[in-house]
């Protein structure tokens, strides 16, 4: 299967700190690839570079065979690469449905239309409702986004990423701050999505990671220290020392 | 040539005055994230206080010292009464609230001192010229402005870079919550910083009083320049404010001095005389526009010195 996303020598420094250090990755279409690592390992910086929010100091990013390293953020979404945010980043002043509809609108050509009421356009509202239904938020569609619970915000994050009908999703800690029930819901949703999309998943929740991932990359201090299928990673001594051991200690063994 | 050197010194002097004003503005914004439009009002009060106290005590120096103290007190009072409630709010709220303060102070001054402004005359020992270079005499007072301003700049450098308070200021600029969590009395720190900014504004106001103006609305006129300087230099950076202020001072002064002559090369005397002031005041905004195009965050952006 062809690689949908290919990353070579990706590096980024902030002053004296090397956030990502020569990262290389190749993700074939249809795979759910997890990226794990301790805090400060550079995971969010990696996603920021992949989505175009940060410009790498060196390296290349290839998506669907074209070099997107220099492509600005707004254009990457149009190419089919969508991202969700670790810290909820929604349009809190607008309704839930408006949020999803904006994600749809972004993909339907230019928006220099000044007259027709956008909230009455089925071309925008229908796919938006569909995306909300996908994550189970259709009952809350008319509420202002600010009125949702944290768990629902994470779901809306996902819905917006889906509403743009991407080929690949970059998910930055979608389970952040979710309780056990909500996490389980999210995991089963992601399992469904796996069947139609390629996913890069950054997560701390190890249960979810090992339940969902086809392959896992481990980052420590901005470097890839291991990459392989879940079994290989679980058995990798380096990874255990650097990260999983720490995780077990935290969870009480 | 002598005229050129004199104009350069004028530009430097003007630039340093602007630096004092801009330093206070950028400090307050950098540390407390507070946009203070009423900064110009403190500048105005410094001038009015100086003129009043000098007249009362019949001593220029005493008047100046008292004015500085008074402005500092007013600044701290404003911080405690009004500014405290603005921290953490939208910048638009800051703009509106401090705009309200400008209206208030302008009218207050009009009420207390009347509408026609005041004057502050120099004592005889300052009202002379000093021979700084063979053949070049420069106003002793303007020279003293340069010296005092430079001294303040050096003082600020040491304060921010070498003292504990300075360290807190720099830390606060990058992470307010952390500094609070460390057990530092943030409220007191903010009041001190705001007071410092007020004192700087007041100092600038009273220093220019004998040579420029003491009138209502003087704060608004110069505030724009201070803003432009903070944008060019980068908000929160005192070093940036210094460089930008000198640059702006020189460009503005030299521009006004020589633009007319420059224009006269191609246009008539009348056209040059009328167009020159308008165009030379544009130079600064042109500079700002260029900086914005090349580096939107300013020359020395973010929490630095």
């Amino acid at each position, binding site marked *: 299967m062809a690689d949908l996303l290919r990353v070579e020598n990706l590096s980024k420094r902030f002053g004296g700190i090397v956030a990502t250090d020569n990262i290389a990755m190749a993700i074939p279409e249809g795979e759910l690839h997890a990226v794990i690592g301790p805090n400060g390992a550079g995971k969010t910086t990696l996603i920021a570079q992949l989505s175009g929010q940060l410009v790498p100091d060196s390296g290349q990013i290839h998506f669907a065979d074209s070099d997107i390293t220099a492509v600005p953020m*707004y254009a990457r979404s149009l190419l089919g690469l969508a991202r969700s945010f670790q810290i909820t*980043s929604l*349009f809190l002043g607008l309704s839930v449905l408006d949020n999803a509809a*904006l994600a749809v609108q972004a993909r339907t050509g230019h928006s220099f239309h000044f*007259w027709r009421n956008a909230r009455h356009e089925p071309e925008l509202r229908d796919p938006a409702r569909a995306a909300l239904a996908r994550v189970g938020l259709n009952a809350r569609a008319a509420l202002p986004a600010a009125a949702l619970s944290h768990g629902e915000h994470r779901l809306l994050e996902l819905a917006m990423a889906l509403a743009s009908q991407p080929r690949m999703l970059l998910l930055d800690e979608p389970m952040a701050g979710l309780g056990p029930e909500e996490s389980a819901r999210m995991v089963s949703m992601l399992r469904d999505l796996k069947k139609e999309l390629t996913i890069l998943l950054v997560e701390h929740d190890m249960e979810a990671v090992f339940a969902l991932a086809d392959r896992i990359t481990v980052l420590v201090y901005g470097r890839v220290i291991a990459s392989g299928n879940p079994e290989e990673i679980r058995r990798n001594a380096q990874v255990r020392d650097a990260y999983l051991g720490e995780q077990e200690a935290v969870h009480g063994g | 040539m002598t005229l050129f050197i004199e104009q350069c010194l004028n530009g430097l002097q003007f630039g340093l005055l602007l630096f004092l004003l801009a330093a206070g503005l950028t400090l307050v914004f950098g540390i407390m994230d507070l946009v203070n439009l009423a900064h110009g009002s403190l500048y105005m009060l410094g001038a009015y206080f100086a003129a009043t106290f000098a007249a009362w005590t019949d001593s220029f120096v005493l008047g100046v010292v008292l004015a500085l103290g008074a402005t500092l007190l007013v600044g701290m009072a404003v911080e405690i009464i009004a500014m405290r409630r603005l921290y953490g709010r939208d910048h638009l709220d800051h703009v*509106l609230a401090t705009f309200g303060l400008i209206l208030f102070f302008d009218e207050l001054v009009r009420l207390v001192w009347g509408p026609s402004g005041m004057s502050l005359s120099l004592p005889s020992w300052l009202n002379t010229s000093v021979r700084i270079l063979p053949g070049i005499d420069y106003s002793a007072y303007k020279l003293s402005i340069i010296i005092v301003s430079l001294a303040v700049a050096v003082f600020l450098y040491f304060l921010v870079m070498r003292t504990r308070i300075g360290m807190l200021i720099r830390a606060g600029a990058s992470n307010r919550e952390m500094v609070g969590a460390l057990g530092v009395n943030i409220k007191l720190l903010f009041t001190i910083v705001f007071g410092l900014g007020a004192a700087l504004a007041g100092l600038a106001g009273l220093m220019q009083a004998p040579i420029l103006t003491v009138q209502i609305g003087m704060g608004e006129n110069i505030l724009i320049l201070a*803003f432009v300087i903070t944008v060019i230099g980068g908000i929160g950076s005192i070093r940036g404010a210094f460089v930008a202020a000198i640059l702006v001072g020189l460009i503005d002064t030299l521009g006004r001095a020589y633009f007319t002559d420059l224009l006269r090369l191609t246009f008539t005397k009348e056209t040059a005389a009328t167009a020159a002031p308008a165009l030379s005041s544009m130079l600064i905004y042109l500079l700002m526009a260029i900086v914005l195009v090349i580096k939107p965050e*300013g020359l020395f952006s973010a929490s630095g010195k």
Partner: protein
Amino acid sequence: MSGWLSTRNVATAVLLLALVLLPVYVELTGSRFLLTLFTRIVILALAAVSLNLILGYGGMMSFGHAAYLGIGGYAVGMLAFEGVYSGFVQWPAALAVSALFALLIGALSLRTRGVYFIMITLAFAQMAYYIVAGLARYGGDDGLTIQKRSEFFAPLNLSNKVQFYYVCLTLLFASIYLVWRIVNSRFGMVIQGSRSNDTRMRAIGFPTYRYKLTCFVIAGTLCGLAGALLANHTDFVSPAMMYWTRSGDLIIMVVLGGMGSIFGPLFGAIALLILEEALSGITEYWQIILGPLLLLVVLFGRGGIDGLLGKVRHG
């Protein structure tokens, strides 16, 4: 649908009706001053409506909006000075020049954000002020008197105060309607989204700069129209029209009336100007009261007048 007869809607309808019937009231009571005052209110409300588009809906805190009042006004004034009195030339010129300035200023200013943006728009407006004040031919600091009001086809005569009032009112209503349509369109969604979370907008695929710039130009042009009206109203233009404190007045109107609401700017304009009239009747130093009053509104009066009316329904 409780929505239709809400306090806010009823109050608004009554207000609009009152504005339409004002000249009748003036005829009956002979208080011509009221007509002059409300013509001014209507014109400034138009300016506030244009500011609300970029500030209330777009989140762009422009502190230089009064510049377009001056630019539009001076376009009319300068043309009148040169003997061109036709409104068909003056008003399009006012719109065109305002649009051009908004394009230039917006293109540069929108490269910045937050407080930088506030300061930059402020500085550019002052620049325009100094340019205009330096034009000796057109009165400089003292301003320029306009001999005749803009001429259109008979029977339209702008020197007739009642006719002029209705022209201004019609343009105000048209602008409010225009802004309403823009704000709810796809374009409006982008602008509102951008106000809420600009980074997210870009992340999902919107090149927000070009939309904000377009919005900025629309607002500037609309304000230029207000400027042309203002010039006719006062038969006079001066640089003071565009001094940055006037921009502050406009912002106050928008915030006082309720940001991001359709009729908010109108409420705000009425409130501010009537407040000024009332306060100046009490004391010469009325700004001493207005200043702290503004401070209090900012600290405690979220949502402005529009918000207050909305609360009455629920409260």
